C-alpha cells in the first residue's frame, strides 16, 4: 500500500510537479508575474482561439461520435470487431503524422485541395475532430454497451416512439459518459500542439504553441509561465468536471454486452449513414499520405523510402531516418516500462475502497493528481525538465533517461484509465474468498488482482508504446540532436522544404503510422474494452 502510493507520488513529484512548478515559478522571478502578457491583443486572441477551437471540436466530436458508438456498440453485425479496432487508430496516430497527412490532403492538388482549406481554422478543427472521435466512441460506447436495454423496452411498450425513447431514456443515462468524453476531448484540444504547429502556420495557434514560441523563439519565460498558469487553470477546471461526470456514471447497473446488442433495423439508418461517411473521411488522410509518399520527383516510385537511409537534402538531419526510427523504438520501450509499472502500482491502490470518508477523499485526490499530466502542456513539461533537471541535485542533462520519462508521464493517465476500471470491477468478495481459503495478502494480489488485470496491462502497454512513439511536444525539447526520435525528424524535414525533404517527411510519416497501427492491431487482439475510454 505504502509502496503503491509512495512510488507514483514520488515519481510525479520529481518528474512532473517540480518541473512544472519551476517553470511556472519563472514567471514570478522578478517580483510580480508578467500579467501584462495576458492583456496583449495577441494573447487574448490566442486564448480565444484555443477555447473556441476546443469547444467546437468537442461538440463536433460528440455529434459524430455518439451515432458511431450506437452502431459499433449497440448493433450486431459482421466485421464489428474489426471496425471497433480501426476506430482507435486516429487517436494514437502521431500528431505530426496527422498534421502532415491533412496538409497533403488539403494542399493545392491534394484530394480535397478544391475545398481550399489549407492553412485555415477549419483545417485545424477537422484534424482535432479526427483525433478525438475515437475518445467519444470508446467512452460512450463502453457505457452504452452496458446499459440494460429493458429500460428502453419499458418506455417503448409504454408508447414512446424510438426518437422519444432515445431522448427521454437513453440520452439521460448516457449523459455522464458524454460529458466525460466531451471534457476529455476539450482537454486534448486545448493542449493540442503538434497538429496545430504543423497546420496553423503563423496565423493560427493555441496557448500551447504560444508557450512554445515564447520559450524557444523569444526566450520570454515570464510571459510563457503566465500562459502556462492560465492553461493549468482551464485544465484543472475541466478535470474536475470530468471526474464529477465519471463519478455519477458508476451508479448505473451494468449488464453483459451480449444482452444489449441487436441486429440493425431501418430506424438505425441515420447513425449507420453517419458511421459510413465518417469511416470514409477518416480513411482519406491516410490514403492521401500513402499516395503522396509514392510520388518521387516527377513520377511514381519508392524513392522517398530509399531516401530514408540518408540525411536529406542540404544535410537537414544529423542522423539517417532509419536510425531515428531505431531511437524512437528504444525510447518508447523504456517509456512504456516506466509508465506501466507506475500505473499498475497506483491502480492497485486506487482500486481499493476504504471505509472512512477521509480515505475515500484521499483516493479521489490521488486519482486527480495522476490525471494531471493529461492536461498540463507537454511543452511546459519539456521545458520544465530543461530548467530543473539540468543542475544538482539531479543532473540528468547528459543522461538519456529524460525523454522516456517525459513520454511515460504523457502515457501514464491513459494506462491508469485502461487498467483501473478492470481492477475496480473485481468483486471484493472474490478477494475475500481467496483470503478465507488461506491466501496471504500478497498471494491474493497475485491470484486475483494481477491474474485478472494481466491482459489489460498488456493492452495498456501497447497503448503506452504507441503514444510514446508519437509523442512530440515534450520530446522536441528534450531529445538530443544526435539522438532524435522519428516525430522530431519529420517535423525537421517539413521545416526545411526543398529537394526531397518533403517527400522524405511523408515517407517517414507513413512508416511511423504503420508501426503505430501495427502495435494497435496487436493490442486490439487482446480485446480489452477500456482502451481509449475515460
Amino acid at each position: 500500500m505504502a509502496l503503491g502510493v509512495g512510488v507514483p507520488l514520488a515519481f510525479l513529484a520529481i518528474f512532473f510537479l517540480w518541473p512544472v512548478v519551476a517553470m511556472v515559478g519563472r514567471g514570478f522571478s522578478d517580483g510580480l508575474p508578467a500579467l501584462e502578457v495576458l492583456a496583449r491583443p495577441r494573447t487574448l486572441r490566442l486564448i480565444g482561439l484555443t477555447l473556441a477551437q476546443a469547444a467546437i471540436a468537442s461538440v463536433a466530436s460528440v455529434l459524430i461520435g455518439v451515432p458511431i458508438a450506437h452502431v459499433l456498440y449497440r448493433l450486431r453485425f459482421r466485421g464489428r470487431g474489426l471496425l471497433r479496432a480501426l476506430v482507435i487508430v486516429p487517436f494514437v496516430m502521431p500528431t505530426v503524422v496527422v498534421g502532415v497527412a491533412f496538409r497533403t490532403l488539403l494542399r493545392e492538388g491534394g484530394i480535397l485541395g478544391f475545398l481550399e482549406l489549407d492553412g485555415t481554422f477549419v483545417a485545424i478543427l477537422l484534424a482535432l475532430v479526427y483525433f478525438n472521435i475515437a475518445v467519444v466512441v470508446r467512452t460512450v460506447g463502453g457505457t452504452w454497451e452496458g446499459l440494460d436495454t429493458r429500460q428502453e423496452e419499458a418506455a417503448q411498450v409504454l408508447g414512446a416512439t424510438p426518437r422519444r425513447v432515445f431522448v427521454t431514456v437513453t440520452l439521460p443515462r448516457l449523459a455522464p459518459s458524454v460529458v466525460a468524453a466531451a471534457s476529455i476531448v476539450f482537454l486534448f484540444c486545448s493542449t493540442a500542439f503538434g497538429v496545430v504547429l504543423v497546420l496553423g502556420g503563423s496565423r493560427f495557434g493555441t496557448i500551447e504553441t504560444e508557450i512554445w514560441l515564447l520559450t524557444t523563439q523569444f526566450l520570454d519565460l515570464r510571459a510563457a509561465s503566465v500562459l502556462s498558469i492560465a492553461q493549468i487553470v482551464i485544465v484543472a477546471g475541466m478535470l474536475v468536471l470530468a471526474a464529477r461526470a465519471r463519478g455519477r456514471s458508476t451508479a448505473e447497473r451494468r449488464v453483459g454486452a451480449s444482452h444489449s446488442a441487436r441486429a440493425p433495423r431501418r430506424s438505425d439508418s441515420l447513425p449507420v449513414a453517419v458511421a459510413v461517411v465518417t469511416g470514409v473521411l477518416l480513411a482519406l488522410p491516410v490514403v492521401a499520405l500513402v499516395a503522396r509518399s509514392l510520388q518521387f520527383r516527377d513520377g511514381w516510385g519508392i524513392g522517398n523510402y530509399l531516401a530514408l537511409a540518408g540525411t536529406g537534402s542540404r544535410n537537414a538531419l544529423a542522423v539517417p531516418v532509419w536510425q531515428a526510427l531505431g531511437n524512437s523504438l528504444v525510447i518508447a520501450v523504456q517509456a512504456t516500462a516506466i509508465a506501466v509499472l507506475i500505473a499498475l502500482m497506483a491502480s492497485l491502490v486506487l482500486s481499493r475502497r476504504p471505509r472512512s470518508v477521509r480515505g475515500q477523499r484521499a483516493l479521489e485526490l490521488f486519482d486527480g493528481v495522476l490525471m494531471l499530466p493529461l492536461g498540463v502542456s507537454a511543452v511546459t513539461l519539456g521545458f520544465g525538465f530543461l530548467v530543473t533537471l539540468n543542475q544538482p541535485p539531479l543532473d540528468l542533462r547528459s543522461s538519456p533517461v529524460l525523454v522516456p520519462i517525459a513520454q511515460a508521464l504523457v502515457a501514464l493517465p491513459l494506462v491508469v484509465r485502461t487498467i483501473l476500471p478492470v481492477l475496480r470491477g473485481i468483486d471484493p468478495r472474490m478477494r475475500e474468498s481467496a483470503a478465507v481459503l488461506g491466501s496471504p495478502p500478497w498471494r491474493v494480489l497475485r491470484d486475483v488482482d494481477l491474474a485478472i488485470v494481466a491482459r489489460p496491462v498488456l493492452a495498456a502497454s501497447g497503448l503506452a508504446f504507441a503514444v510514446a512513439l508519437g509523442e512530440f511536444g515534450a520530446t522536441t525539447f528534450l531529445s538530443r540532436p544526435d539522438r532524435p526520435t522519428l516525430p522530431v525528424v519529420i517535423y525537421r524535414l517539413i521545416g526545411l522544404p526543398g529537394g526531397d525533404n518533403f517527400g522524405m517527411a511523408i515517407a517517414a510519416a507513413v512508416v511511423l503510422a504503420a508501426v503505430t497501427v501495427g502495435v494497435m492491431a496487436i493490442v486490439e487482439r487482446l480485446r480489452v474494452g477500456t482502451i481509449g475510454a475515460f
Partner: protein
Amino acid sequence: MALEISGVTVRFESAGNRVAVDDVSLDIGTGEVLGILGPSGSGKSTLLRAICGLETLAAGTVLWDGADITDLAVHERGFALMFQDGQLFTHQSVTQNVGYALRVRRLPAAARVDELLALVGLAGFGDRRVTSLSGGEQQRVALARSLAASPRLLLLDEPLSSLDRELRERLARDLRSILTATKQTAIFVTHDQDEAFAICDRVAIIIDGRLVQVGTPAQVRLAPASAAVASFLGLDVADSAV
C-alpha cells in the same frame, strides 16, 4: 376475445437458431388475468416479449379485437410491460416514472399519478428518488407506471420473483385486488405455481417452448395434461389421472 395469438414461433439466430417459442396459440378475454407458468428457460418470457412486439416472430400472428397487430410497432400497441426487476428510470423521480406513459401521450399526469400511488400504497412517495426505495416499493412504482395510461393489456414478467417470501405473498394479494378493481386484462408470467394460482383466472403451462396445457387453476391441478406437467407442478404422477 381481446387477444388472440396463433402459431407464434420465435427463433434465436444468435443461439444456433434455437426455437424459444414453438407454435403457441392462446386467447385472452377482456378483463381476464392469464398466467403463463413454466420452468426457468421454458420460453415464457420470450412469449411475453413476442406479444408486445419486442421479439420478431418467425411465424404466427397476434390479433387484438380481431385486428392483426403482428407488424405494429411496439410503442403503438397500447400495452404495458412490467419487468422482474422493475427497470425504473433511475434518472427520474417516482412521479416522473409513473407519469411517463401519460407524458408520452400528452395527457395530464399529476392527478392520475397521485391516484395510482395511492392505489399501490405509496401515497406521498412522489418526490423520492427511485434508487432510495426498497425492492418491494420499486415494484409497486413499476406497477403504477404500467397502469398509468390504462393499457389495453398489461404484461407482467415475473414481477414478484426478486422479492422475499413474505413481501411476495402480500404483493400477490394486492396485485390481484388491483387487477380486479381496475378490470385490467393481463398476462402474468411466473415460474411459481402458488403465485399463478393465487392471481390468475386461467393458467397456460409452457414447457420447452411449447404450450402443453391451458385451464383454470383447479383444472390444471386436478388433471395435469401430461407427466411433464404433473412433475413440474410437483404432483405425484401415480395419483393424478394422466
